[in-house]
């Protein structure tokens, strides 16, 4: 048996086990996405990083324990780095929520983004969970694709458009995807802009959002 300290709490785990086993035994948790016990232990998503006593950040799912190892699961540094990792994962994710097989079920990525306050998941991600009809399809200037999720989409749930009260997403990839959606459903951008001014009139990135939407809407995707 090996003695490990998780957040200064002493636990004993069998030799050859990994940090994640010790963490769970100590009663704490770390978020995981790619890890699947006994099947996948390649640490490719890195979301399970923890901080060691010597200040190193290591993935909990693939780092073996050693005698006297000190592990911290929830320091400020860990949370900051998890945030960056989430943003990186989301960078290649775009707005896929409408066609995601998890549609109608729960989404760990969405939960994590909400927990860590990562902007980049639009209201659209939560909207189909309530079995709503897409308002864009009806030709209404819904701000769902460019508004930060986390509200539980109360407006679209009742059949009114999202008016963006939670704030805009400023990430380029999301905006490009959103502009394509607006174009696909033939929604005039002026109407979208008009709605954007309801809550985002003084947002520092408003011009940037405008330009990205306009660029994509008018010229297709920029090479």
């Amino acid at each position: 048996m090996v003695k490990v300290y998780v957040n200064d709490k002493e636990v004993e785990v069998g030799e050859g086990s990994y940090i994640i086993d010790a963490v769970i035994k100590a009663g704490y948790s770390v978020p995981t996405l790619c890890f699947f016990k006994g099947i996948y232990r390649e640490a490719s998503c890195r979301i399970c990083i923890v901080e060691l006593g010597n200040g190193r950040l290591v993935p909990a799912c693939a780092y073996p324990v050693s005698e006297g190892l000190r592990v911290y699961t929830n320091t400020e540094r860990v949370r900051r780095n998890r945030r960056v990792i989430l943003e990186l994962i989301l960078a290649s994710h775009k707005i896929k929520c409408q066609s995601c097989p998890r549609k109608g079920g729960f989404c760990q990525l969405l939960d994590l983004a909400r927990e860590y306050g990562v902007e980049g998941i639009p209201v659209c991600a939560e909207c189909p969970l309530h079995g709503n009809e897409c308002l864009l399809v009806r030709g209404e200037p819904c701000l769902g694709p460019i508004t930060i999720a986390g509200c539980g989409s109360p407006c679209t749930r009742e059949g009114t458009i999202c008016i963006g009260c939670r704030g805009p997403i400023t990430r380029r990839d999301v905006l490009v995807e959103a502009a394509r959606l607006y174009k696909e459903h033939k929604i005039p951008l002026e109407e979208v802009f008009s709605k954007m001014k309801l809550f985002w009139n003084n947002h520092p990135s408003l011009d940037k959002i405008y330009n990205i939407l306009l660029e994509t809407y008018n010229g297709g995707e920029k090479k």
Partner: protein
Amino acid sequence: MSYLELSERIDKVFGHLELRLSLRNGSVDAKFRVVHDMRLIEAVIEGRKVDEAPIIASRICGACSIAHFLASITAIENALGVELPDDIILLKESMNKIQVAQNNVVHLFFLALPDYYNARTLSELLSRNPDLIKVGFKLNNLCLQVVELLAGRIVNPNTYRIGGFTKKPSKDKVEKAVRILGEAEKLAREVVDHVTRLELPELVDPSPVYLVSESPIGYLSIGDYILSSTGEKFRAVDYPKYISEEVVDYSNSKVYRYNGRVFYVGSRARVLEYGERLVGLEDYVSSIVKELNNPYANIKAKALEILATIMDVKEKLDELKDRDLRLRTEYTIRSGEGVGVLEAPRGLLIHHYRVDSEGRVVYANIITPTAMNALHIEHSAMTLGKKIVEGELDVVEAKKYLSMLVRAYDPCLPCAVHVVVKQ
């Protein structure tokens, strides 16, 4: 008599206000100073699309967002000439009514009642009279649940857009609402029994003129006319001819006069005008109607309204739950002018918009009940002041009665501050 000035910052009201009463050589003057910051919502609405105006208007007030939302949307529907089917009107009115009930509960229990038990705060009253306040909390909660079922959420409704409701309320939802209202009705009866027996400070309404929005059927329904206690009835669009507004230098709220007279809007006016229509509540109405020339009696009228609206909404919802509802109608954008009047929890509310041919609001005017009541509150306070001059009241008592008086009107200051001083 020497100079005396009472300046009271009134607590337990929505927002910030100061009541200044000065007595000098036997003359009495009162100033209702709204010190809440200006909000200028009208200026924000001007230049927006018609469908955005109600969204902004509902943000005027967190307590009565539904009233502002509905008044705004009614004004725009009138401007665009939208003809609504009866089902929509019925549900729309139910939304307003249940919100009146909920607001009245909040006002009664959490703002007004502590005065009548010599408690300074709600928590003091809670420790002294827990059963009573628990009824208030329970009733508030039940009303909010129904608000949520009808309006989508507790503040800033999102089930209604120009031309009707976005979704049909499911049968489950309506049945749930009816069940909740049944429970609320029992509690409301207790409340009315209790409040109508309270003893009020004596005061005679100094200016017994009131305005109330027309209610074509029943109680608190939405009409196109404004009625006055002098027997006059005028179209809502003609309100500028009858109601004059004035900017005063001491307050951030405008003051209004009806045909040059100080007037009152609110629950008292509603019960006086439509009290006889409250079926099944005749005993209560007749027991309080004699007292209704006393501004303090507003709380009794409000208590009665809680029960009346809950019963009304329950009946209406029960009736429509098995019907196939037509809840959407088409409309086209055109230029026009429209006024929406309805009875908000605190009284008559007027929203007035002018729309251009592209569907933009080019002119907006919002007159809130508190602003209309400002002068009436001053006059009532002056009557109290005269009592001090005549020696019927001592100063310490007067201070207490002054704050009770203002709270009886239930002013909402964030709603009232829409002043623009034109240079």
